């Protein structure tokens, strides 16, 4: 096979899988069958191609406008994982909602293909197309529960605001193009490092910051986060997990790639975004936590939680600007993203299980006293909550620990201690949920949970065990993320 084909193998595989699913949608009647086929094709085609390429050490094909280095493959693996998990959770969820539609799985796979494109783009065009493929699939997926008005509203909100923000992103890209006469990351980096900027520096900065706005929107950093709580609340819960985990990881992946290969080329620029990310990250952590404390809807609470987590990720991304910290921080951010995947998909999965068929957004009331009526589910949910809160012996703790450890090592004590304070505030609302699970308020009857199928329970068990296992023995993951970089 030619190098070009090798380099695009994972994206092509997922694209093929998506086409297959769309074709099958015309024939299949049962959503469950479609789901199983979707999971199989994702794991076989997507997972297989990632494994094959990984075993070859990745392929870097400059001509393909995508780079399938090990970093991209790591992300591709995460995307395959999250897509499979979300599809497996959808099997029961959409049955319960009586809206099990065969096309669903095609869109999840299409979104995954988009994420892969975003994670391996080496050119602004592929970057943009990957982002839009992912976003368009999300717009559709958010509206999949058309019988519920929240779902439609979420879809509309996400669509309009997404298009609005990508206008800024595109304008930024246009000015970046104007400042380097190249759409290739390599070309832009050369222009930055040599200082050969055709239209002058101001236009470079303008382009850069407008571009960042688009990224901040996708990462849901404050003040570009407003869409997130509403959309997360309104979208079908497994899809929320996909958006919160896959979408955010993909945005972070794109950011990592473009920052490492382009924006570190000029130290002046790197200094600017270092400070910007620290400020935005800390603001996100603090403001997000404060609002999260007031939330009663579990999905909104989880949405703000994922906003806060984006703040921590932003701290890590910002520190990539510091050359001496780059390698360690990259590993820390990758670890954080993988940890975030496990615990967040788990938390949203429980939220989906607790949802009743007719109801749509459950408040904390639906969780009070689950410790007695559904002890296993409650135990798993506590594990995810404690991990999100960053309690030791969970993978969430280690994620924060590595990021703060790297910050401290780099001498950024102020940022690290502020972030730590924010992390402590953040524990409050997670513990609130755990308390509700085990100590229902006086006079409250313990809530009941709809019947849970074995697939969901098995997946939850795996994720819970993974959260704890990696929290105790992180060696597997730290070994994987060590030494990954732009090929």
């Amino acid at each position: 096979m030619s190098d070009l084909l090798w380099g695009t193998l994972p994206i092509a595989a997922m694209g093929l899988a998506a086409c297959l699913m769309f074709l099958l949608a015309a024939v299949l009647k049962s959503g469950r069958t479609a789901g199983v086929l979707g999971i199989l094709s994702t794991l076989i085609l997507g997972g297989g191609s990632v494994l094959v390429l990984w075993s070859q050490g990745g392929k870097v094909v400059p001509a393909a406008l995508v780079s399938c280095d090990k970093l991209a493959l790591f992300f591709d693996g995460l995307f395959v994982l999250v897509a499979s998990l979300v599809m497996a959770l959808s099997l029961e969820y959409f049955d319960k909602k009586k809206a099990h539609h065969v096309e669903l799985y095609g869109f999840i796979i299409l979104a995954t293909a988009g994420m892969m494109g975003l994670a391996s783009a080496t050119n602004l065009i592929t970057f943009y197309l990957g982002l839009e493929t992912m976003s368009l699939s999300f717009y559709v997926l958010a509206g999949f529960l058309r019988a519920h008005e929240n779902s439609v509203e979420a879809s509309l909100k996400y669509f309009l605001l997404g298009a609005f923000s990508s206008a800024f992103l595109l304008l930024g890209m246009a000015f970046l193009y104007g400042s380097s006469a190249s759409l290739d990351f390599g070309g832009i980096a050369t222009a930055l490092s040599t200082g050969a900027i055709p239209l002058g520096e101001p236009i470079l900065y303008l382009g850069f910051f407008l571009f960042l706005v688009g990224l901040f929107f996708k990462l849901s950093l404050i003040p570009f986060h407003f869409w997130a709580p509403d959309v997360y609340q309104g979208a079908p819960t497994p899809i929320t997990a996909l958006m919160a985990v896959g979408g955010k990881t993909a945005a972070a992946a794109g950011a990592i790639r473009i920052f490492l290969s382009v924006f570190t080329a000029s130290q002046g620029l790197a200094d600017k975004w270092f400070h910007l990310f620290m400020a935005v990250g800390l603001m996100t952590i603090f403001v997000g936590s404060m609002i999260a404390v007031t939330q009663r809807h579990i999905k909104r609470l989880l949405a703000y939680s994922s906003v806060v987590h984006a703040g921590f990720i932003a701290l890590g991304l910002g520190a990539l600007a510091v050359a001496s910290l780059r390698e360690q921080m990259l590993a820390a951010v990758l670890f954080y993203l993988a940890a975030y995947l496990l615990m967040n998909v788990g938390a949203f999965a429980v939220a989906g299980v607790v949802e009743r068929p007719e109801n749509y957004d459950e408040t904390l009331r639906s969780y009070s006293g689950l410790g007695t009526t559904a002890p296993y589910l409650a135990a798993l949910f506590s594990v995810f909550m404690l991990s999100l809160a960053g309690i030791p012996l969970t993978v969430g703790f280690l994620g924060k620990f590595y990021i703060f450890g790297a910050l401290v090592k780099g001498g950024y004590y102020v940022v690290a201690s502020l972030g730590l304070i924010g992390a402590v505030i953040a524990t409050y609302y997670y513990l609130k949920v755990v308390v509700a699970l085990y100590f229902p308020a006086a006079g409250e009857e313990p809530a009941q949970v709809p019947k849970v199928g074995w697939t969901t329970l098995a997946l939850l068990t795996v994720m819970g065990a993974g959260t704890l296992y990696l929290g105790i023995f992180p060696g597997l993951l730290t070994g994987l993320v060590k030494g990954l970089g732009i090929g």
Partner: protein
Amino acid sequence: MMPVSLLWLIPVLPLLGAFVNGVFGWKWEKDRRNVISAVALGSTALSMVLAFWNIATLWATNWASVPERVGNVTVDAAHHAFALHLAPWLPVGDFLTGLGGRGHFNVEWLFVLDPLSAVMLFVVTFVGFLIHVYSVGYMAHDQGYFRYFAYLNLFMAMMLTLVLGGNYLVMFIGWEGVGLCSYLLIGFYYQKDFCADAGKKAFLTNRIGDMGFAAGLMLILYYFGTLDMAQVNAIAVGGTIPPWVITASAILLFVGATGKSAQMPLYVWLPDAMAGPTPVSALIHAATMVTSGVYLVARSNGLFSMSPTALMVVAGVGCFTALFAASIGLVQNDIKKVLAYSTVSQLGYMFLGVGVGAYAAGVFHLYTHAFFKALLFLGSGAVIHAMSGEQDIRKMGQLFQKIPQTYRTFLIGCIAIAGIPLFSGFFSKDEILWKALTSGDGPGKFGPLYSKVLFLVGASAALMTAFYMFRLLYLTFFNSDRVSEEAKHHLHENPKVMTVPLWILAVGAVICGYVGLPKLWTGSENVWERWLEPTLYVPGGHGEMAEGAHQAAASGAEALVHHSAAMEWGAMGLSVLVAVLGIVWATMWYKRETETPSRLAQALSGPYKVLLNKYFVDEIYFGAFIRPFVSMSRIASGVDRWLVDGTVNVVAYSNEVLGMLLRFFQTGYIRNYGLFILLGVLVLLYFYF
């Protein structure tokens, strides 16, 4: 070599048991309680078997010919230690230490099997297993059976992690874990208010200690550049660390130890902790968890040995606590309270032992104490169980015929703790007192006056111990019959599942001391000390020290010329004398009902009340710390709730208010959100241009 690589299973097995019972136990709570106990007992028994196998391996190892590394097990032949490097945990990397050296923050899951941890392993798994067995009978009729066994198993897992942890952070996990379990089990009968209060008190007091511990760890990490205990000890005795760092970190660790091991001034939680079920008191608050402070000091012996000041503090606090708690024990009327103060006092002895640098003696007392104190607690539980929950010894008496098995085992326990020769308590207590007297030779190099004071205070505490234990025995089993009619009606000997563990422990309380026969009797070196000696860290490396010790032994009396055999016999005689004296005294006053105690109490009503009210320490703490705090808050805000609940509430509240305000930006209107994006863009652009 094989069993060492399975070391991690020892804590994991009880953890699995806790998991199974915690998650599925509620299904078996009603009619299949035997499944719950089978899970709990099975996992503990397996873990015990594994532990014994490991200990046997350690015993049989030929250190001269052992390879340095086998798989993920490394061997430190000089210190007789196997270290199992299970997996990395917090690999952060290198950093610059406070002394300008290179530190390595690479914490792994490190489990260490050496003679010291082997002793603890033996005590925890063996006594723990017996108490599990006993609990099956004791808890048979209680609510929350599955919860009880899940907590108990979790406790075992955490305690074993604490014991086996090879670095301070792994140990700290166990340390916090046992604290959590203790808290959960003290509050087990959470329907009763005082149980929950006692749990809270234990929690808060332990937090104070833990802060010291955590601060000590940070200091150690910053200056030593590692948290691996073996390395810290080695670096400490290496002499490159400034003395103040060593003293400060040792004292901070000791603050943690005083919290967990209930020493002055943080002992107040332990007597209250008796609110929990009695087997819990036996396991956690007598035999294992409360001794972990002693274990911590013994584990860090290199660190402590290098700081005479720290040792002086440890010995002083331990010695004073021993006397102080014993004096309170003299007049208490609750059977478990007497034992609780006795535990505090005995823990003081252990600290006295490690404080004078006699780590082996301190750990020896820890080991014998585990047997006889667990025995006494389980015996008291058997009494309480037989008396349908009565704990006041003023309402007992003449029980020796009604519950003979319990009586006999309790008697053995009392003799052992009193320090009568040929029973285990005698050997360990005598060893500690002797080492205290000769502490001028120890690493602390205490002056002769300090040594003598330590010895005399220790001996007086021993006198009181003998007295209050036999007072307890007589008031419970002899004296006059003061049992209420209703209790009498239900009075019965306990089932086999409870008495068999009692007998096993009783046998242990008699014979377990024979591994540490004094050299004075046998003429050859003490087996116990020879076993533990390799775990000691001394300046100049271990080999020389061992060599030196043997030379000293060879040259006989010369080296220790000022401690003649006669003097040692004398000290031993004195400690026997005080024990006998205490017993005789108690016999005179309490064997039969006499007027003396009450008359004396009237004559000396002032001191008596002071003792009865435990020196008013709870009240003093309340007056000195809590009440001023409360009244200050009254003055400050007029609402005392604010300050009692602490600033946390204020922070949380202001947080919520801010959150509520910020929430209103989330209007739900798409165009508002778009506008916020635009405003964000503007802020960004104007900030950078």
